[in-house]
């Protein structure tokens, strides 16, 4: 497998892009060829990522050591390299990304939003795939920045072109504008705003690193420097703040979340699936991969603030859900809550918390992805997402209703399903945060988070009650509803199975993450940091 | 050597040119104002040269170039004037304002 060690990762990242180019050459009307190519490409990427699991040495080793590493000069002038690699933290997310991508292609086989243009849509999906996979493996800040941004354009077009066309009255705008137009540009500007500051932060790190040798964007080297306490004081504060803006927008953390409900509601089904399943993870992943290891002290001193924002997000998101009348918008807001748990886990700065965050990301990716699939398919059939008009779905489409119920249960963190571990362990972590962090804040967060789970259950049941149960409204009685079709099944069943498996055997995720995270925490939060925290309070 | 007087003269000429360029409506007159300004510069250079007396009379050389270029400029200007006059039978710049927002 010599070739695989060197080329495997690059292939996983760039196969989709190559596929996109290929699709560009194919004729627009030869649909089967288009779909086929897309499927083959994504399957190939997924297969390679599975192969990578088999080849990956779970012996772990200490943090900041990566496997399948590639390090080639890219922009010599600024000493920025094409440096990629995976470790226990990024591996599950990479697999998740390739996996969901395959399912999305399968799903979109017979689900095309208007205006009908499979070619364009598939191309965008594949570009998106490259961006997402790349972000998870990039080990160079500039490279990371590029991949991080590459996802913007496809998503912008997905939302803008295939998005929801219902006009909406938006406060601050004189006339009504179509949701898709508002949402797409909002998404774009929000993210760009964040990443502008993120970039400034990266550059600052780059120049500061010059004081300890060559200036570098290399995450590994910067992590080492960070471990040696190279970045401290106001500088570190500003840099962390700048990067925080960039990442927090993507997560999204309260109060930078408002692009999310609009984007999700407006986006076409596959768009919102990918958005929820993977794009949101880019931000939280970046916290784990960049903010914490490179600026550990700063991270620790920001931790309480992050925890508080996270908890606000949990409560706020759940409450907002209860006020929604639009099914998709409700699910979108639920993401705010769930990502709140992820960020709470990260904020604890402990191995438990960070593991919780990672499995939380994976679970949220699977569950909310599935929820958006369902929401899409239902609005495909009902042509409305207004829960007031829905109801009795169980009668009209029993299987769909059953799956919806299952997913809702998973989403509210039912133990035995994937969603549970992220939430539970986030709470566990916040009971004993990193030594020296204010216990009061974190334990309060724990309690509030636990209360948040109740609210979560509340709106999920509310949704089921509105959508699934009761007698169907008159307007549907005379209509023909075809239950879940085979493409939907093929796309969903793997998700369901995985949700159950992870629920009962989370080890398949932790096996990969634990050692890495533990050594991450051990290495970056050495005794001196906790000591300084304790002294500084 | 009384350079300053020359400089003052030049400055005066230059200002005159500017004023003319600003208030004249007829393009031809505007061109003349431009000539004034350029020649003011020439006076400057010559005056300086007379003060500096550089090895290869740089000032004069520069002046000559400016004169040449100025001629070319005027040529261009007149060409434009003709074009405009053809189109609208007037060389008045004040009604050249189609493209206001």
């Amino acid at each position, binding site marked *: 497998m010599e070739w695989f060690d060197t080329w495997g990762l690059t292939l996983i990242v760039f196969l989709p892009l190559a596929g996109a180019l290929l699709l560009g050459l194919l004729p627009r009307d030869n649909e089967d060829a288009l779909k086929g190519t897309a499927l083959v490409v994504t399957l190939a990427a997924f297969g390679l990522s599975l192969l990578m699991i088999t080849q990956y040495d779970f012996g772990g080793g200490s943090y900041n050591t990566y496997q399948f590493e590639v390090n080639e000069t890219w922009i010599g002038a600024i000493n920025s390299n094409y440096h990629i690699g995976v470790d226990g933290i990024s591996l599950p997310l990479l697999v998740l990304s390739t996996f969901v991508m395959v399912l999305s292609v399968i799903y979109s086989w017979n689900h095309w939003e208007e205006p009908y243009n499979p070619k364009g849509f598939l191309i965008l999906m594949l570009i998106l795939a490259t961006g997402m996979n790349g972000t998870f493996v990039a080990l160079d800040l500039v490279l990371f920045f590029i991949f991080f941004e590459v996802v913007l354009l496809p998503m912008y077009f997905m939302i803008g072109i295939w998005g929801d066309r219902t006009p909406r009255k938006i406060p601050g705008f004189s006339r009504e504008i179509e949701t898709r137009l508002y949402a797409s540009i909002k998404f774009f500007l929000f993210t*760009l705003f964040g990443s502008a500051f993120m970039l400034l932060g990266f550059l600052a790190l780059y120049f500061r690193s010059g004081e300890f040798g060559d200036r570098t964007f290399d995450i590994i080297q910067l992590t080492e420097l960070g471990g040696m306490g190279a970045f401290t004081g106001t500088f570190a504060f500003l840099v962390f703040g700048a990067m925080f803006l960039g990442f927090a927008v993507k997560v999204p953390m309260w109060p930078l979340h408002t692009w999310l409900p609009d984007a999700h509601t407006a986006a076409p089904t596959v768009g919102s699936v990918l958005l929820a399943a993977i794009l949101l993870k880019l931000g939280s992943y970046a916290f784990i991969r960049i903010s914490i290891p490179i600026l550990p002290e700063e991270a620790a001193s920001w931790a309480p603030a992050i925890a508080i924002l996270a908890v606000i997000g949990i409560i706020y998101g759940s409450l907002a859900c209860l006020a929604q009348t639009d099914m998709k918008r409700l699910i979108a807001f639920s993401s705010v809550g769930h990502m709140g748990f992820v960020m709470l886990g990260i904020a604890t700065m402990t191995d438990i918390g960070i593991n919780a965050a990672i499995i939380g990301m994976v679970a949220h990716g699977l569950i909310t992805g599935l929820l958006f699939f369902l929401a899409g398919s239902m609005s495909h059939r009902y042509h409305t997402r207004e829960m007031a008009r829905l109801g009795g779905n169980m009668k009209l489409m029993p299987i769909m209703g059953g799956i919806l119920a299952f997913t809702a249960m998973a989403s509210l963190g039912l133990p035995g399903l994937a969603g549970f571990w992220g939430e539970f362990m986030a709470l566990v972590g916040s009971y004993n945060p990193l030594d020296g962090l204010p216990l009061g804040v974190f334990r309060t967060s724990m309690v509030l988070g636990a209360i948040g789970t109740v609210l979560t259950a509340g709106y999920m049941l509310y949704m089921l009650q509105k959508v699934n149960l009761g007698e169907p409204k008159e307007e549907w009685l005379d209509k023909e509803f075809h239950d879940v079709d085979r493409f939907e099944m093929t796309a969903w069943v793997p998700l369901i199975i995985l949700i159950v498996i992870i629920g009962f055997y989370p080890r398949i995720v932790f096996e990969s993450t634990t050692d890495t995270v533990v050594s991450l925490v051990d290495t970056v939060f050495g005794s001196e940091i906790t000591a300084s925290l304790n002294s500084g309070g | 050597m009384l350079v300053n007087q020359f400089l003052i003269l030049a400055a005066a000429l230059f200002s005159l040119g500017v004023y003319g360029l600003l208030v004249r409506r007829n393009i031809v007159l505007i061109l003349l104002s431009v000539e004034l300004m350029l020649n003011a510069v020439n006076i400057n250079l010559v005056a300086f040269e007379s003060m500096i007396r550089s090895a290869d009379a740089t000032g004069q050389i520069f002046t000559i170039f400016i004169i040449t270029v100025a001629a070319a400029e005027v040529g261009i200007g007149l060409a434009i004037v003709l074009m405009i006059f053809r189109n609208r039978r007037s060389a008045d710049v004040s009604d050249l304002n189609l493209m206001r927002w």
Partner: protein
Amino acid sequence: MTWEIDYLALAPELVIVVTLLVVLALDLFLTRPNKYWTATAAVAGTALAAIPLVILAVEGENVSMFEGSYVVDEFALVLKGLFVVSAYLVLLLSHHYIESERFYQGEYYFLLLASVLGSLVMASARDLIILFIGLELTTGPLFLLAGWRKGDAKSNEASVKYFILGVLSTAILLWGMSMLYGLTGEITFAGLATATAGLADEPAMIVAVLFVIVGFAFKISAAPFHFWAPDTYEGAPTPVTAYLSVNSKAAGFVAFLLVMYLALPELSEIWAPALWILAAASMTLGNLSALRQSNIVRLLAYSSIAQAGFMLVPFAAAAVAGTNIEEGFSATVIYLVIYALMNVGAFATVIAGANRTATGDIDGWAGLGKIDARLGVLIGIFFFSLAGIPPLAGWFAKFAMFRAVILAGGTATVVLAVIAAVNAVIALYYYARVIKAVWLDDAPAEVPARAETPPSVSLRLALLISAALTIVIGFFPAIATFVGDASRIIAAGG
């Protein structure tokens, strides 16, 4: 003294000279239907001019002629390369446009090539006279070209405005130069660099420098000396506009930087703040004004004003901070190169788009992407690249800019960086407006007129080249950085 002239070093200029003579000659003899040969000749000539450039670059030895007033070094070569390439692209655009508009072709190409020649001269100019000649040679022909659509009142107006303000600026510039000469007795950059030492507090010197700056500010259409730009851009034939916003702007920039950096380093405390102000004003004014444009050319005009601001940022910041000035210099040049490429592309799409939809109104382009996907994609590429969205070349321009600014450090520069960051976001908004019209808005019910005339081969070629460059540089910015290195070298050498 002896004048040994290195003809190889002058080969690019000579090739252009020959070409424009050939064009002139052909124009005399050819009958109307065969006039297109002039175009072919011009294009071919420009392409030829690239060959000596490559050779010189490979040889890589600096040639300095006329007592160092005319220098052909790596930096000059890089910029000449840029000028030739962009000129080549503009010629490709013109070919289609001029033919379809039935203009005088011979004269057109003659004047355009003359302007190119001027810009080539400027790249090598190392004393005020040659610089002045080059400058006039660059702009003079454009006064006429701007009014090339003779019948069109707008075009007339464009050329008049450009002309009057142009000569005004020339006069001011010259006044400043004459003062410089008067105060130092030097006209070579090297000489000035030494002679101006310690004259920073001389009021006359301040005025002189400022007048020079104002003169150049006109050429690069930096606020508040930009008023001519939108009107002229809108009125002039689109290829000419492209040339204005790329070559002449770039040429102006080069001259500007050279003078400031090589001739007046000692006076940086005078011009650095001025540049700072120009940069900030141009970015803000340009972007905010661009938000309101309904005509795409006018939008690009304001965008190019804003971009000029962005380009000034690194150099100004470094100069104000007084540190890492060569980094700032190289960043500006990198930005310049990338900007030139993507902006030509943008104008190419404008021509193609107008050709498709028979309108220059952004709203008129609604749904263009669905009518002509290829063109839509290209529009997306160039406009998002202008907005600086990865992985398109634009991102690296912005990246280099921020990099240089942060490197410079200091309060004033941080302020400038923040202004730049905010403006970058604003800019996205109006660039995205075009994309929105093209892709997101629905096509009007009736099929736009002239939708059937396909863009000519030359136009396609221009689009292809600029698009390819935009994307490739986006993925491999290393290509652009060697320009920076080159400028860093001259910075070191100068």
